[in-house]
């Protein structure tokens, strides 16, 4: 079963890291990604640019309304994701718990909805 792990971090904490610490943090991400590729969990994953680059788009009555910023202002911001293949929720939780940001921010684990399409 596929799960999306949404990674929420406080951007200000991450950007305030001294260079040594942020390099080590990135290195942790690289090794984590390698590890879940090897274990067969990895389907995809990306890091996102900060929310200051976000644009929110809505179409109402045929008109496109574009606004600056993320969909919701929150204390922790969506900073990246992994799409994983896991046996069940327990397996997915174990993978999510190893994402480096889980120690400072939070990881939301969402099962992917499967549609039967002919």
């Amino acid at each position, binding site marked *: *079963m596929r799960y999306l792990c949404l990674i929420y971090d406080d951007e200000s904490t991450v950007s305030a890291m001294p260079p040594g610490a942020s390099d080590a943090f990135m290195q942790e991400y690289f090794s984590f990604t390698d590890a879940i590729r090897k274990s067969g969990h990895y389907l995809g994953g990306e890091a996102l640019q900060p929310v200051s680059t976000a644009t929110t788009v809505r179409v109402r009555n045929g008109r496109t309304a574009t606004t600056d910023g993320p969909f919701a202002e929150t204390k922790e911001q969506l900073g990246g994701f992994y799409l994983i293949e896991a*046996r*069940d*929720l*327990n*397996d997915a*939780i*174990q993978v999510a718990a190893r994402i480096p940001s889980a120690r400072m921010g939070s990881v939301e*684990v969402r*099962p992917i909805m499967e549609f039967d399409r002919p």
Partner: protein
Amino acid sequence: MTQDEARAREVVEAVYRSDSRRVLATLIRLLGDFDLAEEAMHEAFATAVLRWPSDGVPDNPRAWLVSAGRFKAIDGIRRRARFDASLHRLVEQFDREEAGPSAGDDDTVEDDQLRLIFTCCHPALPPEGQIALTLREVCGLTTEEIARAFLAPAPTVAQRIVRAKSKIRDARIPYQIPARAELSDRLDAVLRVVYLVFNEGYSASAGASVTRHDLSAEAIRLGRLVVELLPEPEAIGLLALMLLHESRRDTRSSPEGDLVLLADQDRSRWDRARIAEGSALVQRALASRRFGPYTLQAAIAAVHAEAPAAEDTDWGQIVGLYEVLLRIEPSPVVELNRAAAVAMRDGPAAGLALVDAILARGDLGQYYLAHSARADLCRRLGQTDEARAAYRRALALTRQEPERRFLERRLRELGGERVSRG
């Protein structure tokens, strides 16, 4: 109804009471779905009512019921699969699994019960969903019984159960006993559910009665089951804690429903059998050296329970146990309890200094027991005005009737102005 039929029906009812939860736990594993398993279990018992009078009661009724339930469910799915292509895969899966673990095997059955408990208490479910689902599936309470016990509308409880089951299915919460590495965290979640159920029964969060016996009895039954299946120190400690609290149940309130403090309770009416069982369990958990907060709280309760009279209480030991508890689980409430024990050991002035330090940090400003503890210490020190102000503050913070009456009585005993009820 002939005599044989009547007897067979009695046997079915007895087996339902003793084994329906185990049959259900195994059927959930075999069928992979709570609702399907429940339906199958009821059909299996219905079939037993029809068949056992003429065929006789099978040697292993539980195994018979599991295989009858499984057959009924698969048969039903096969029939539906003719109209619904998506069920074909399920039917094929059942056919492949035909030679799975035998249903009557005792180890497998015990494992199934644990699987059910861990699944119902999965931390990915909301707490109220964990409680409702556990009481429904593990304890076999009806939705109406759960609703009555929690003073909640039945549709609310029903919806919590439905939502929990949907999440188990849609997020694929597995039906399994957690691996060693996760076991301690996951057992904590199970014990929390058991303790919440117990507390809900022991001290109702609102309303007129201090105790709601059925829920506490259910929690103790559940606690026993967990200890039987998984004798981990904290599971043993929690069972001990519940038994020791329960031993005092009848003396906690007067016939008029007023609160009676530990020091004023009639100790000759404490349940000695429960105290003996609870104390023995405490010793067992402590001996493991892997104990935690439940065991320590139980040890404190055991010291109280073993004192022949309130003035014989070994307050030094209680203060020591609170200090260990504070080290492993720091909390302002535990600090407050320690302060009350220090007051008993070293006098009210020593206790009051500690309570004031806690309140000065602002942690327990909204906690009525902090103010009522402060009031009590001021009263013992003869600081009547301070005591009165603190009792009033406590009164403003609690909604429970018996506790309000207790505080009002204390205020009256201090004399002075009339108490207005608000």
